């Protein structure tokens, strides 16, 4: 129950949510809601692990995980952008599809044993900083460090670059973007793909770094859905997304660790002596997501912030609407 260790592991486990949340955030910024994150994460986790088992090369596994999840996301892109169908239903179908395919192809993979994992290392100098050093920069997977870089990069991209401006235009006012000569459909395909790639990366982060292995649906255990919720909490802002992701990672880790010791703050640990109470602990991430959604939604109303205006609506050139 060393708080530093819990936070250190929490950052690692939060990286999974971070990738998935940033991916979904970019997809939604372009005006497409993709509820299939859970399915894409599962297929990423399965692909990453099985390729690594087959080839012994985790980098190849990581690459293919991102590619396969990206390809799966294009099913959603085709249905919702070109065929202009309902984004909610299509996203659900994508979850079924991704889950089903990963379970079929991942059959027997849980007995594959251990594989070569992605490297972990400490950053020289930075790991010497008191408190922050051990939490953020000591013996973390390389993917965790990539996560640190992704947050400011995404923020800068969305708010300070021309392609980022185009992304926001496509999500807020596609007709105007179209009039400016931006390829609305092309952009949306691209950002659905980016979302898929990042969801695949999130899945592979589980199976190749944070909790190595393949445990069928329990590999992701609903984290794809939590990521969709975190996007709302984050108000479509990557920095808030990072805060939420790491907080949830730490919570998940705390729940695991709190059941271990016999003493808690000098008192008999009720979760140690009543092991079934652990089920209530396991409800917490999901109950917390609901609370976070309440907070996020209220704040959105108060500050008049909100989702990208065109989120959820197909863009049909020449039709009245947004």
């Amino acid at each position, binding site marked *: 129950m060393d708080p530093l260790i819990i936070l250190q592991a929490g950052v690692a486990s939060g990286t999974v949510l971070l990738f998935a949340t940033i991916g979904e955030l970019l997809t939604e910024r372009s005006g497409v*809601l993709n*509820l299939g994150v859970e*399915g894409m994460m599962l297929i990423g986790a399965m692909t990453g692990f099985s390729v690594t088992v087959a080839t012994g090369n985790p980098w190849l596994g990581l690459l293919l995980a991102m590619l396969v999840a990206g390809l799966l996301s294009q*099913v959603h892109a*085709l*249905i919702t952008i070109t*065929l*202009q*169908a*309902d*984004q*909610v*239903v*299509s996203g*659900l*179908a*994508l*979850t*079924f*599809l*991704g*889950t*089903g*395919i990963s*379970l*079929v192809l991942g*059959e027997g993979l849980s007995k594959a044993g251990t594989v070569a994992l992605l490297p972990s290392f400490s950053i020289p100098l930075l790991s010497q900083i008191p408190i922050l050093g051990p939490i953020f920069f000591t013996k973390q997977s390389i993917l965790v460090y990539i996560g640190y870089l992704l947050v400011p990069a995404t923020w800068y991209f969305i708010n300070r670059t021309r392609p980022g401006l185009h992304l926001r235009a496509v999500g807020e006012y596609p007709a105007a973007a179209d009039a400016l000569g931006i390829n609305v459909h092309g952009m949306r395909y691209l950002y659905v793909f980016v979302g898929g790639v990042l969801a695949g990366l999130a899945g592979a982060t589980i199976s190749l770094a944070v909790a190595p292995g393949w445990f069928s*649906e*329990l590999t992701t255990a*609903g984290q794809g*859905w939590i990521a*969709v*919720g975190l996007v*709302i909490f984050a108000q479509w802002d990557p920095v808030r997304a990072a805060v939420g992701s790491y907080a949830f990672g730490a919570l998940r880790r705390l729940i695991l660790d709190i059941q271990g010791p016999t003493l808690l703050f000098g008192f008999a640990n009720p979760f140690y002596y009543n092991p*079934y*109470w652990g*089920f*209530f602990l*396991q*409800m917490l*991430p*999901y*109950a917390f*997501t*609901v609370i976070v*959604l*309440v907070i996020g*939604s*209220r704040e*959105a*109303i108060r500050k008049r912030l*909100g*989702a990208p205006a065109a*989120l*959820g*609506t*197909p863009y049909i050139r020449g039709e009245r*609407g*947004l």
Partner: protein
Amino acid sequence: MKPSQKEWLSRLVDALLPVFATLAALFVGAIMLLFLKVNPIQAYAALWEGAFGSSNALAETLVKATPLLLVALGICISFRGDVINIGGEGQMVIGAILATWLGLTFTDWPGWAMIPVAMLAGLIGGAIWGGIPGLLKAYFNVNEILSTVMMNAIAVQLMNFLLRGPMIDPSQAQLASKIPQTARLVEAFRLARWVPTRLHLGALIAVVLAVLVYILLWRTTLGYRIRAVGQNPHASRYAGINVKRYIVLALLLSGAFAGLAGAIQVFGVNYRMITDGSASGFTGSAGFNGIVAALFGQLHPIWSIPASVLFGALLVGANSMQRAMQVPSALITAMNGLVVVFVVSSEIWRRRRQRRRLAAAPETESSPGSGSASPESAEEAA
């Protein structure tokens, strides 16, 4: 105006779209089977044999179809009200817990009293679990898709706790294995069966309810208002409908049907609750597959009946396919996704033809904003 031959043809195509979607899904499924080095024709033959090959197989198909239909009926109500309920799994679990607790507590009641009360308990349990996301959506603007998914996870952990702790079978509590299950219901409480099969009264209840839901949605003010709120919440508000109340009601009713499905699963099929740690261990994923069945039945309660039988058949057939050909039965989860993919993508052709029909029809017949994907609905979903 007499419909031309061409128009009849296009209407026929509309009606057959789900069939094409199924065939397309089976085709993609065949490719996946080839990928697994399994002969698809043999596999599908095993699937058909397992689902319809004998009267017992057919009965099993209907047993599987029953919870699907009940969940689908709830989905018809909520989706028509533009409220997306993905919480069927959790609602089934809570409904079942409440009904099972009654059945195990008041063992001296006569069956004719317990069964209706237990069914009512199932309805109430599901309604509570669906009503909470409904209240959160109506009064706190919380996205119901996410809150219902989270409620599923919470319900599962509650079930895991109860079945290992307070509700565990007293005989299991003494054993070292401690299988997380409740005691069996006494014989008087079990729903009547069509022996020697497992087909039970619940199937009939579900079909009767399908007719009642049809009447509710299209012949009552309540149903009209739920649909009105679903089509256009702003117009409904101007028309004096309390939109928030109908959002809550849509989710509450939807949850109630799933809760009933859970109660019937205990009183008609298993006679006890048992958990493997996941929701699907108890529900058989009926809470999700019911959504697929409802969408396949075009959110119409009567069409949901054949749709549920189809998906029930796929589920039963998948099990025998797994036994005969060693194909993981999760293939059906992927196929369900594919069916929805094809059904939802074929919508564009239907809409296009509808637009053409409206353009050809006299002015008075056209009604704007009849599509389900109105900007308002998307705004709410976000």
